[in-house]
């Protein structure tokens, strides 16, 4: 069902040619939208959900942004296929449990996905690699305006866009930026950062929402509030917080390197050594080692092009992707072997770490 999606080597988050930025992996924005009058998905019966699904897919397929896009009915997907889509951030876990009449529309480059009958009738998402709040907003805003020409969206002047949960009222906008923060984690500052930004209405979660001890030192940072501020204000406030976090992260890296130079270089060297020679590896360990390789690129010890490879492997080392690539149901043990084989193969061609480059940069 999703084979062409998975094998598309130009998919935004896993393409090899893309240049990737230090610290920020990707930017996502989603908008929650509902149709006037129709009961929200949780309240709707099967017929009502099916009706909304048909109306939405009809309009979506007419949009130029969705030409050559793919529509997937959740009922037609296997559990593994759903997991792969979650790992690619194209659908949510909640959509996986969706009852009859739920689906997702994904565009050709996998930069846009529209979930239908998740918590709201429509959850529009745009994503892009790197720190790109402004350009992603521009794209999703245009898409939303286009959709509004044919779909009667539920809106009130006071509450803004009407959503099933009051937490999404107003703009219905949630911007989420994926950040690689090894410096803050290793220096033990992450808890403090999470608490500090929390007071500003900003939430920090792990790569797949598992909290503050995220594997791979990867965190999703997003706005919590959607009402009372314009989209521009929300995004600017988030951007300012993110810039501060980036500064803190870079400072933490420098300071750690100054004080624990040998330890840092050792961790990077060991990561490279293990990835080149591993025969059995869990997804958590793989993510943590990949984190040190990404750090090595940021330090100038590896070519810039390796960064995009690391970002791709972060996704391809997830359990669903490993299992999907194996073309058969494999046990977790075999999965760890398959993952190791893949990593060994990928890292066989990794250039030697330029430890001397680090000396120069100081």
């Amino acid at each position: 069902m999703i084979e062409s999606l998975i094998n598309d080597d130009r998919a935004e988050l896993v393409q090899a040619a893309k240049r990737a930025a230090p610290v920020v992996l990707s930017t996502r924005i989603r908008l929650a939208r509902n149709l006037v009058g129709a009961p929200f998905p949780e309240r709707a019966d099967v017929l009502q959900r099916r009706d909304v699904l048909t109306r939405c897919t009809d309009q979506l397929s007419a949009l130029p942004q969705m030409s050559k896009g793919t529509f997937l009915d959740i009922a037609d997907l296997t559990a593994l296929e759903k997991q792969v889509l979650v790992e690619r951030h194209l659908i949510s876990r909640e959509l996986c449990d969706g009852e009859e009449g739920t689906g997702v529309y994904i565009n050709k480059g996998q930069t846009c996905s529209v979930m239908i009958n998740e918590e709201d009738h429509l959850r529009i998402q745009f994503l892009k690699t790197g720190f790109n709040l402004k350009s992603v907003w521009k794209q999703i805003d245009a898409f939303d305006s286009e959709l509004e020409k044919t779909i009667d969206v539920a809106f009130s002047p006071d509450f803004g866009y009407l959503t099933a949960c009051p937490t999404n009222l107003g703009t219905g906008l949630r911007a989420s930026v994926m950040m690689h923060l090894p410096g803050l984690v290793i220096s033990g500052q992450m808890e403090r950062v999470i608490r500090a930004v929390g007071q500003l209405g900003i939430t920090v979660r792990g790569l797949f929402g598992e909290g503050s001890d995220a594997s791979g030192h990867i965190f999703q940072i997003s706005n919590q509030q959607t009402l009372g501020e314009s989209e521009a204000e929300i995004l600017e406030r988030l951007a300012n917080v993110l810039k501060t976090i980036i500064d803190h992260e870079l400072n933490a890296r420098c300071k750690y390197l100054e004080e624990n130079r040998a330890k840092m270089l050792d961790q990077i060297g060991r990561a490279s050594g293990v990835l080149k020679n591993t025969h059995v590896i869990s997804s958590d360990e793989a993510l943590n080692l990949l984190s040190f390789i990404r750090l090595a690129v940021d330090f100038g010890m590896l070519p810039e092009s390796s960064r995009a490879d690391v970002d791709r492997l972060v996704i391809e080392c997830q359990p669903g992707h490993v299992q999907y690539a194996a073309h058969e149901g494999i046990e977790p043990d075999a999965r760890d072997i398959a993952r190791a084989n893949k990593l060994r193969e990928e890292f066989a061609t990794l250039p030697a770490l330029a430890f001397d480059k680090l000396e120069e940069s100081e």
Partner: protein
Amino acid sequence: MAENLKCSICDKEATVHLTQIVNNKIHKVDLCESCAQKKGVTDPEGFSLADMLSKAPLAPTPGEAQEVCPNCGQGTADFRRTGRLGCSECFEVFQSLVLPVLEDMHAGTTHKGKVPTVALSRQSSKMQLKDLQDALSQAVVEEAYEDAAKYRDQIKAIKAAEELEVSPK
């Protein structure tokens, strides 16, 4: 939903109802007073939506008027239990219940962002059209033909304007 909800932990009657968002997913918990204390849902250290919501008056107020949304059938008790609305019309019916929740949840209680102007003008012209058509039928019944002609012209004008919008530039 007439029966009282039981505590998710100990089966006593639940008086604390929490909605927490984790990974964009809503988690709902119903707890009795003592389990809520034990679980530390009011822990000031843990920043979470559950915290903010626990301050909001989600727990049912005794003797509260029970409204029902005429469009989707959601009742006051449903909103108190789930913290969610059933359809776009619910916001009119439950406005007075939603507003206090928003104060603790968001930066403000009034929308300041994007307005779907195209969709709104289409919706309002649809309503206008319906009103005019009703008036027209009424005028015909009452044999007020001058009024009828006026309504017919107005209907024509609105439809012509719509055609213009839909047709490609």
